[in-house]
């Protein structure tokens, strides 16, 4: 079984026998979209909810944004023959690692990322099948394309399968 790493602001697509992994998610969110019929999936690793000023800077990596990444994750699957009606999503991340106190800018970015991902999935009509979000701990996820399951673990040894 081959493990493909998906770094920050990256998006990868995989097929049968493959595992897509995103390590060390803090307030970032991993979005796993799976087509259960064709056994294909894509994993996005986003860092921000959306572009705030609506201007795209030259060469800017747009996959860091939740709304763009959700659209692209679905489109990547459609491009290899998947059907939107057979897709479902699982998400993990969006923690708040540091206690920054009230009013500190960026303190709630994890929460806002999760909200943006949930909204973007709903907009695209993709059901949310499982989520492990929020809290104070970082996460590592492994997305098995064979089963569609998203395995989540933390440094304190917690393991969950979505």
């Amino acid at each position, binding site marked *: 079984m081959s493990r493909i790493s998906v*770094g*920050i*602001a*990256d998006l990868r697509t995989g097929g049968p026998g493959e595992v897509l992994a995103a*390590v*060390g*998610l*803090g*307030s*970032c969110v991993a979005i796993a979209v799976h087509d259960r019929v064709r056994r294909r999936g894509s994993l996005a690793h986003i*860092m*921000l909810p959306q572009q*705030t000023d609506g201007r795209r800077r030259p*060469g*800017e*990596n747009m996959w*860091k944004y939740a709304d763009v990444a959700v659209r692209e994750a679905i489109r990547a699957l459609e491009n290899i023959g998947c059907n939107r009606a057979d897709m479902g999503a699982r998400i993990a991340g969006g*923690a708040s*690692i*540091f*206690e*920054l*106190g009230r009013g*500190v800018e*960026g303190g709630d*970015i994890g929460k806002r990322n999760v909200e943006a991902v949930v909204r973007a999935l709903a907009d695209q009509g993709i059901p949310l099948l499982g989520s492990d979000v929020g809290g*104070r*701990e*970082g*996460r*590592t996820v492994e997305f098995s394309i064979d089963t569609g399951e998203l395995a989540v673990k933390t*440094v304190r040894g917690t393991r969950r399968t979505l």
Partner: protein
Amino acid sequence: MYERIDESRLDILREICSIGAGHAATALSQLTGRRINLEVPRVLFTKVQEVPRIVGGAETIVDGLYFRILGDASGVILMIFPEESGREIVRLVLGRDDAAPEDALSVSAMREIGNILTSAFLSAISQLSGLSLIPSVPGYARDMAGAILDLVLIELSRLEDTALMIETVFREAGEGIRGHFFLLPDPHTLEATLKATERAGSPKGPG
């Protein structure tokens, strides 16, 4: 936004950090009773995706301390200690071996150590530049390096896909203690900080 920084300004930046980090290293030596050396600060222009690799990979467990710089300039200071190093520092400062790594006392000691080092760093830069710089309350966590770095990368990536950071490595001769001290200047106030330092007489003389 960073491309206007020429080599002579980078020299000033390196010099500022070297002096600031020197004060912080002295403070750490005094706190731990160990001799802590400094490496020459490195100015890094790095794709945000590459940053976790600098501290040993996104899954490496580290102690992370996060400060915002408040006052006449803004930015972020991030201190990263490999897990064993963080434990060793707390052990030396508290003078006891039995402190569990995540009990309240250890966590509070780590925050306080972070406060002392950051204050030493910023007060040295304040003296050089005449700017008033104070640290925020520290954020502390022991977690995967990727998770610790997320917040900083997110802030940077709002503006750029490339991070400007100045990294200074602290190292004890016997390798018992090692830490990475990162300064991430806010691009909006970096220029003002450099100008103020030049006006006040740069450590390397004019220009």
